[in-house]
């Protein structure tokens, strides 16, 4: 996001093409694996969609209300999109991308800092700014690619199994919002990687913070009294209600997520450019 302006100004000079290609090579495998896992879940959940099962599952919700609520599975699905939202976007589409993000930031930034391979990059006429911009754009691009591919799988599966039943526009909006949310999470992980020097602290905070946010989200889903907790977790910024029920075009939450992501990437890049790197 921040780098886009540079790219335009300098005619592509603010990113390093060889480094970009290298990033693609490095992230290809984890991207494909997580994509495969998500595709499987998406198709299975779509396959399972039928109103009778929906009733049975709402039976579960009555029997184990807290359990089901914790993972966001509440309410009766009135249509295919709601069904997908309930069973995919409370847990699976939040957690698996997080795993991908952690691996990706480790490979693109934390690993090179800790292992010292960053020294090779810095010993070339590429500024720290250029290097970090390339990494930021790669990260944003790979998460976008992951969501883009999963979205296509979702649409295609729906059209094959339940032609015409999916509200495609709102489904796209849901995915864009989830991607924005995950980009903000990438921002958190990225910022941590820019500040620390070893994988231990990276995983402790980079993985720890999103996981704590996620747990808080689960708890706040469970009860009325605990609902206030939603103000301390980033995951409550996924505008599910607005998209599903109110047809919002660009919910306010997305703006907030965009700002959070931008701020974290900028702060991280700033920190990266001024820090000592013991390579």
């Amino acid at each position, binding site marked *: 996001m921040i780098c886009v302006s540079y790219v335009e100004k300098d005619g592509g000079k603010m990113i*390093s*093409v*060889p*480094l970009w290609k*290298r990033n693609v090579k*490095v992230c290809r495998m984890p991207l494909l694996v997580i994509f495969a896992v998500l595709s499987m879940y998406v198709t299975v959940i779509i396959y399972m969609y039928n109103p009778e099962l929906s009733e049975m599952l709402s039976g579960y919700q009555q029997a184990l209300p807290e359990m089901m609520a914790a993972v966001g599975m509440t309410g009766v699905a009135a249509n295919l999109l709601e069904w997908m939202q309930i069973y995919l976007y409370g847990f699976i589409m939040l957690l698996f991308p997080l795993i991908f993000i952690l691996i990706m930031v480790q490979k693109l930034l934390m690993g090179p800092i800790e*292992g*010292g*391979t960053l*020294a*090779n*990059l*810095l*010993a*070339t*006429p*590429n*500024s*720290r700014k*250029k290097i970090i911009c390339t990494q930021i754009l790669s990260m944003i691009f790979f998460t976008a690619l992951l969501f883009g591919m999963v979205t296509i799988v979702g649409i295609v599966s729906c059209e094959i199994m339940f032609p015409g039943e999916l509200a495609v526009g709102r489904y796209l909006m849901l995915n864009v919002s989830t991607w924005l949310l995950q980009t903000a999470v990438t921002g958190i992980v990225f910022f941590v990687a820019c500040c620390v020097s070893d994988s231990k602290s990276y995983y402790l905070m980079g993985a720890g913070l999103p996981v704590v946010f996620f747990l808080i989200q689960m708890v706040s889903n469970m009860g009325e009294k605990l609902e206030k907790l939603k103000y301390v977790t980033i995951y409550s910024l996924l505008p599910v209600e607005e998209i599903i029920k109110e047809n919002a075009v660009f919910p306010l939450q997305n703006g907030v997520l965009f700002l959070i992501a931008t701020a974290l990437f900028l702060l991280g890049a700033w920190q990266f450019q*001024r820090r*000592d*790197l*013991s*390579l």
Partner: protein
Amino acid sequence: MGKKSVMELEHVTKDYGNGKGVFDLSVTVERGEAFGYLGPNGAGKTTTIRQLMGFIRPEKGNCRIMGMDCFKQAQEIQKKTGYLAGELAFPEDMTGLEFLKFMAELKGMKDQRKMRDLMERFELNPQGKMKKMSKGMKQKVGIVNAFMHEPEVVILDEPTSGLDPLMQNVFVELILEEKKKGTTILMSSHIFEEVEKTCDRTAIIRSGRIVAVEDMKFLAGKRKKIYRVTLENQEAVKKLLTEPEIHIWKHSGSKEEIFSNQAELTVSGDLPGILKKFADYGVQDLEVRTQSLEELFLQYYETGVRGK
């Protein structure tokens, strides 16, 4: 006149606490000079080099290469600089050749001839994965990487570690050639011979402080002759050592034990008189050698800091 300083350190300090770090370093390296940077492990050689490379910022003082600030203008400096890290970290999934090509692209190199020449010279077979490469092989990759873009300034952190003696010679030849071309070289080491063979001047760093900067030719002239005398018994040795012209030679770096009826010593005064004295004490054997540079440096290590 005519000489221009290429690397400048002015009162550079980086304190890591517990006496670790570097303190008040001031050194200049001139154009076309090969400059040695000697010191034991943990003396601050790598810390100095990291500051020259712009990886870390000095707390105090200035660090410049070709007149540019090493941290702020690192990218400009790197256009004309080659670097070999002390601890090589290469992406393990790449082969040697893939890595070198990747680096060539990052450096914006159009011509890969020098890269091939160097690979041939160091008999580097770059097909294998980095993960499976030995230390020496990686070192060769690192050396090729440091020189392949024909840099004007080269910074080498312990360049010969892991190389076999044959390759060490190839390396020394390369340095001498580069020197002839006018390349400015800074080379850290704890091996005295490679510095002796290649460098014009050498700084000695100890506990983060530069204790001496010496001209290598001058240093070579300062070497002493050391006599190893074998006498009949220990008493005779003790007595000999009380003579005014005779001084016992001792340094903590001496590796071999000598027998109790032997002594290593330096002498002052005229040689015929000394030899007569040895004869008077019933000399059984006499060896003479020239003090190695290593011993000369060890003198600095031991007394340099105390003397200041």
